[in-house]
């Protein structure tokens, strides 16, 4: 039986890291453009964060402090699994605190606490192509991006308006980056879209199965697509968080019993805990 090798720091071999790093640099230089990269098989399934994991593994250093969230929470099973993967393969310090982290890998949310310069937010992306559901062919969508021909997207959004009176997209809401590329923000709720604009942190997006990396540099304009007479609207909640009392966060609806009683709590568990602490300290 063959000997099993011991794995490199952060799992990936150095040649793979170099390849991913080169793609990341290209991605930052062309904000919103999807750079193809030779995505590797990872020890977790495709669709479970392999793109984000490869990006994180390629940038991670021994001094980094890593936070991993899924659905905004640090304690969801896949977040736990990915955090343990990096603890085991790299030994870096991990945290649940958003301000303390130097790298935050996320699936489906942007933290509520504002990000700062020097932080890197790594998104796990299932389908990187914002035009994919309008045009399944890669050869076609590449052409559309090259020609900056986003007509199909505007037609789709306008059809929403004519049918529903407004744009009926609640997550993975398309954005335009630095006035050029239309980009999929990954399946984050559109509530999070405004946080991407002019963000001081670097935002990196990894799609492992689809073999694409893209980026939004710090201080870059990220505009949600809309129409003059139908401007983008952020999802508003009529409720407050039952645990911390926040009125301006994304809330999860928790079904309490068979009669349909519900409560609303922050999806960002770290923010919720901090906010509860703040309330206690100020005697609220």
């Amino acid at each position: 039986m063959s000997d099993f090798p011991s794995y490199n720091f952060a799992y990936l071999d150095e040649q793979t890291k170099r390849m991913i790093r080169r793609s990341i640099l290209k991605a930052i230089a062309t904000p919103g453009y999807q750079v193809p990269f030779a995505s590797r098989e990872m020890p977790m399934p495709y669709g479970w964060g392999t793109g984000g994991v490869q990006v994180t593994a390629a940038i991670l250093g021994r001094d980094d402090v890593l936070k991993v969230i899924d659905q905004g929470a640090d304690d969801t099973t896949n977040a736990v699994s990915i955090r343990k993967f990096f603890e085991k393969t790299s030994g870096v310090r991990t945290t649940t605190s958003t301000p303390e982290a130097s790298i935050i890998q996320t699936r489906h949310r942007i933290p509520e606490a504002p990000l700062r310069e020097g932080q890197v937010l790594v998104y796990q992306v299932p389908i990187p192509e914002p035009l994919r559901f309008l045009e399944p062919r890669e050869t076609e969508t590449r052409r559309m991006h090259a020609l900056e021909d986003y007509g199909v997207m505007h037609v789709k959004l306008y059809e929403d308006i004519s049918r529903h009176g407004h744009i009926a997209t609640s997550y993975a809401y398309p954005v335009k980056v630095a006035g050029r590329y239309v980009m999929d923000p990954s399946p984050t709720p559109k509530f999070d879209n405004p946080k991407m604009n002019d963000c001081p942190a670097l935002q990196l997006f990894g799609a492992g199965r689809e073999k694409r990396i893209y980026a939004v540099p710090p201080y870059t304009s990220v505009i949600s697509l809309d129409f003059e007479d139908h401007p983008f609207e952020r999802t508003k909640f009529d409720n407050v968080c039952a645990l911390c009392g926040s009125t301006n966060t994304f809330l999860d609806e928790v079904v309490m019993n068979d009669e349909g009683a519900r409560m609303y709590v922050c999806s960002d568990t770290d923010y919720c805990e901090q906010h509860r602490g703040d309330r206690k300290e100020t005697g609220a």
Partner: protein
Amino acid sequence: MNVPYQIGAPGFQDPVAQSQATFRHLMDAIAHPALPRAFTSRTASCGPLSANATAVLLTLVDQDTPLWLDQALASSDEVRNFVAFHCGAPLVTDPSRAAFAFFADAQAMSPLTRFALGEPDYPDRSTTIVAQVDCFSSEGPGFSGPGVSGTRRFGFIPAPADFSSQWALNSAGFPLGLDIFLIGSTELAALPRSLRLTEV
């Protein structure tokens, strides 16, 4: 730090940590364009290639990246041996086939258009330039673009006399174009193609 180069001398003493650290400087630099950042590598220099530029070479270049060298570097046996031994990169003389182009002398960069500028469907298929410079200055032309909050003044020495017009041409082709890393002895900075010249 100037250690005489010997055949087979190690590139990085700690390849994992040093290439990661070098990469993070490069990533920070290109995420914050035209902003010099402190960077001093512990790597040995290699003939006309400075210690810092050597670190960048080891971090980014390998057998998958055709490499173009300027006159000073291409004529150095030390550099060629080092590239063959440590990177395994194929050397190319046609600049339009290069994934990376290294300049010992940043003044020799023009014209930029001889390098690969990418294709409309694949703008990433472009050359990245790594050029050694003596120093940076905050008195150059004004730049703006992604990664720059407002406008930033930036210059480097030595620069090609026509650099401003070269750069204006490069960024006008966005998303096609090439990206430049400028490597000083204690600092580095980056000019991605998304960076626009606002005032000269």
